[in-house]
């Protein structure tokens, strides 16, 4: 556990070191949401409801999913692929350290700093958009969303880890990143709520890990799920984490066995 704390700390320190990055995060967080709110208020000027979503629900959906995105998303794949390609992985293979837990810890550390900046921005933004924002939160929902976000963070990370490890087998992993982003964006409800999709698709997406990143916690937020459905959702997330972890483990074992550590 001491080791893991050290990994988180290095992430925190690393994030604080990049001061420009912090300003960038400010911008990245505010601009799209304000744009979205404007866009949707125009769309809704002709209709009251789209796919069961009122304007207020839609704006709330966008604000909160962007916030959840800040919490759960990890973009470690590029760094992992780079470590593999330029041989930096050597220092992890030769030291008593688990690369997976190191990267995970470092990621959490970076996230903590990111959130410390981002959360106040969201509070300000919600204040400005408060005529649209639906505030409804029970203790139960809060707990379920909390657990869900932690599981999402883990599964999001494992997915990134798998893509990163593909660098053991491919020279370029950018195309895979792109594919992953696209799939995640569409199937998770990040780009639009999944209730805008045909019911068959919605049903199928229940068994994939993606919908649990954004669509699921919003359903919980809007009280659209029964207790049974909520627990089932968390269970499916857990099963996916086990599966993804298994894949990571196998890929790591096989990859490092055949790793040639570049440069004779």
């Amino acid at each position, binding site marked *: 556990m001491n080791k893991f704390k050290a990994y988180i700390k290095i992430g925190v*320190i690393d994030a604080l070191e990049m001061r420009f990055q912090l300003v960038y995060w400010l911008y990245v967080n505010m601009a799209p949401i304000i744009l979205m709110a404007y866009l949707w208020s125009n769309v809704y000027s002709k209709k009251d409801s789209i796919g069961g979503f009122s304007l207020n629900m839609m704006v709330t959906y966008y604000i909160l999913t962007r916030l959840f995105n800040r919490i759960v998303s990890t973009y470690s794949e590029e760094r992992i692929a780079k470590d593999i390609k330029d041989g930096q992985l*050597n220092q992890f293979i030769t030291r008593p350290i688990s690369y997976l837990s190191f990267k995970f810890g470092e990621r959490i550390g970076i996230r903590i700093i990111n959130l410390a900046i981002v959360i106040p921005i969201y509070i300000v933004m919600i204040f400005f958009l408060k005529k649209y924002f639906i505030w409804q939160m029970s203790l139960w929902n809060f707990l379920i969303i909390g657990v869900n976000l932690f599981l999402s963070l883990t599964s999001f990370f494992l997915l990134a880890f798998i893509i990163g490890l593909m660098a053991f087998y491919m020279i370029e992993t950018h195309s895979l990143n792109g594919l992953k982003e696209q799939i995640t964006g569409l199937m998770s409800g990040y780009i639009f709520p999944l209730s805008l999709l045909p019911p068959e698709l919605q049903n199928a997406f229940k068994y994939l890990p993606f919908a649990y990143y954004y669509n699921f916690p919003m359903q919980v937020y809007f009280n659209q799920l029964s207790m049974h459905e909520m627990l089932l959702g968390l269970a499916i997330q857990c099963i996916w984490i086990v599966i993804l972890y298994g894949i990571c483990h196998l890929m790591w074992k096989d990859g490092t066995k055949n790793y040639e550590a570049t440069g*004779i």
Partner: protein
Amino acid sequence: MKSVIHLENLRKQYSYYKKQPGLWGSIKGLFHREELFVDAVKGISFDIQPGEFVGFVGPNGAGKTTTLKMLSGILYPTSGEVSVLDHKPFERKAEFQKQFALVMGQKNQLWWDLPPMESFLLNKAIYEIPDELFKKNLEELSELLDIKDILNVQVRKLSLGQRMKCELVAALLHSPKVLFLDEPTIGLDVVSQNAIREFLKKYNEEKGATIILTSHYMQDIRRLCNRVIIIHHGELLYDGTYDALHTKYSDSKTLEFTAAEEIPESELLKFGTEMKKKNNTYSIEVPREKTAEITGKLLEKYTVDDIVIHERDIEEIIGEIFISKKMRE
């Protein structure tokens, strides 16, 4: 004494794909690729005893780094035996990893954007170094390498020499028993090279750590290593002391002397070969076993002001070994 490192018939084969040149070759390569193999290390064996400082010498691509990578567990050997501190390195057991360190001159383990101190603290956690020991080791190492005032400067702002010193500290904080150094002085200026050399010598002597060092600078090898292992094309060419290299591969020495009188060339050539003359300073090459005898004769015959006996340059000798090896192939 039980050896720390044991290699027996160790081999490593890399596979790669052959690509035919040109666009058409690239297109064909999409469907069918010819797999080729190259032997980077072709069955080498040696044993290293505790406290030895071994120099690993060979031209680029000789298999030095590949061997180091097998010793540190980065690579799986294709066949043969390798054991370090009674462990098989490729099993990557934490218990083994806590007892050695690998420093590569061309790669860094320090956090680029952070001061070295943060990397040191991270290593403290990784190697589970007790507070007391960490403090003591850090104090001692930073004193020896004179890096106290850069502990809190971002690594990216350090010079290459300072960075290398910090790399060494990071690698030694957990008091490893075995140390693998892959070109630790590469690209450094003479002053930094010397500082690092002095430090390594001291460290080896005082801590009794076993060290394997690869370097292209013969100065490193000469000053530090009591044993030299030369490999070439993945094969072991020489394993012995640095001084014995001379006796084995060079059967002549050079006599350089200043004489009061003019000596005709023909006369000097009776004593040895390859005479050179510069003002009153002469140099001739003489057979190793006759050095003393010829020196005596010269002193007797001429009025010699000054005489020096040179061994041939080791770099030259090694170069010749590599070339003659190549010619035979």
